[in-house]
């Protein structure tokens, strides 16, 4: 198992402020109504921006979670 960082949106809390997409543009873009669309996995060099986006969310709707992704067995 390899740990990977994912951004998770709490949709009930999210109000579409859009600050996250400005702070972490490599991981988050906004949809046609201004709500965040997050990439599946946060790239390693984007971790600091992603964390800043989470910290800056006025609704506390964005969190960075570590998930274990099964590694495909080597042949």
């Amino acid at each position, binding site marked *: 198992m390899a740990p990977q960082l994912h951004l998770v949106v709490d*949709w*009930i809390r999210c109000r579409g402020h859009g600050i996250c997409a400005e702070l972490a543009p490599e991981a988050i873009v906004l*949809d046609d109504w201004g*709500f965040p*669309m997050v990439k599946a996995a946060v790239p390693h060099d984007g971790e600091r921006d992603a964390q800043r986006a989470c910290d800056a969310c006025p609704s506390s709707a964005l969190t960075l979670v570590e998930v274990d992704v099964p590694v495909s067995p080597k042949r």
Partner: protein
Amino acid sequence: MNAHSAFCSTGVLGSPRLLAGLNTPADTVDFAMHERVHGPLARFGSRANLERVLLDSGLRGRGGAGFPLGRKIASLAKRRNPVVVVNASEGEPLSRKDVVLLGRVPHLVIDGAIAVADAIDASEVVIYLHEGRPETVEAVRAALAERRGDLVPVRIVEGPARYVAGEASAAISFISGGEALPTKKPPQPTDRGVRGRPTVLSNAETFAHTALIVRHGAPWFRSVGVESDPGTVLLTVTDGTTHVVIEAPTGTPLSEVVARAGGSFERAAAVLLGGYAGTWATPEQCASLTLDRNALSASGLALGVGQIALLPSDACYLSETARISDWLAGQTAGQCGPCVHGLPDIAAGMRDIATRPTTTKAAETVWRWADQVDGRGACAHPGGVSRLVRSALALSPEHLLHHQRGLCRASRAAFPIPVEFAAVQH
């Protein structure tokens, strides 16, 4: 005839299991008849045995997702006073299986819930119904009054008549004293459900099968149907006006199910599989399908709570999709941005496509919106709208072009928009 009347004709392919004892369309299997047909309720004996027998049976949840009930039991947190919830808040406007199960063979559902509750030492069974179907509530109340000495207390909770109120986390929230609105996951109900207690929630039909598995065993249950999803399944076959509930073994060709209900794919303009959050398919495509969850899923199809809706030949699936998506947009719980903002735009875009000449850009925009809202919310509601709309836009490029040129003349509204389902007030 009241569209939601308990009167709904039924039919069986093979030997009846759930529908055993029903002979005329008006039959209700009362408690005495129920015990004559099925024998007295047996017990699983222990939680370990419940888990083992259900895993051996291969019974998968009949609420749409198809999660094995045995695995749900295995994941149930081992804390005191768990709760069993029968989700019978049938909100699918085209489905009648809960009306038939609870209105006509209610003791099978109650037995199954009690058998599970007894084995896990639950403190109560909650039967979650909704206010939009008062005859069903009345039938369950009458059935409970007939029973004596049940091992676990059973009570009815009536949720609001709203589409998303039947979603599992919304049901648990309402039963716990909150609003009937979806909550974020995790936690799963098996960990923290009704009032924070470990909860086994499943569809009414799942419990009805469990009532027969505890009596006859796992090998009996597996003796019909496909290996990956054994047993029989209830299906509602409808043209939007008449509804027939059919019990058939999994693996049965869809065309046989439809024929048993008195319909045929050949006469349909299009087929909506899986209800209003489902997928449009062509009659030709349906002719080769069988009741096999895995095979259907591989074709991008699903039957949801078992719905096969035949669109009459004088109706248009794009117009139906516009009306249905407008209704679904109004059924949002109003909590999540992409659903609140996206669904009305999608519905308005579909209305344009269905009713006036448009350019290909209109269809592309609706498709992009459908992609954007998919999977982005506390519940699966926006994803259901996405599925419906994308399948409609993809069904026939020729017919879409016909609409873009303003040439479709079909104006008849075939599928019902339930009036008793109020939109959420904000």
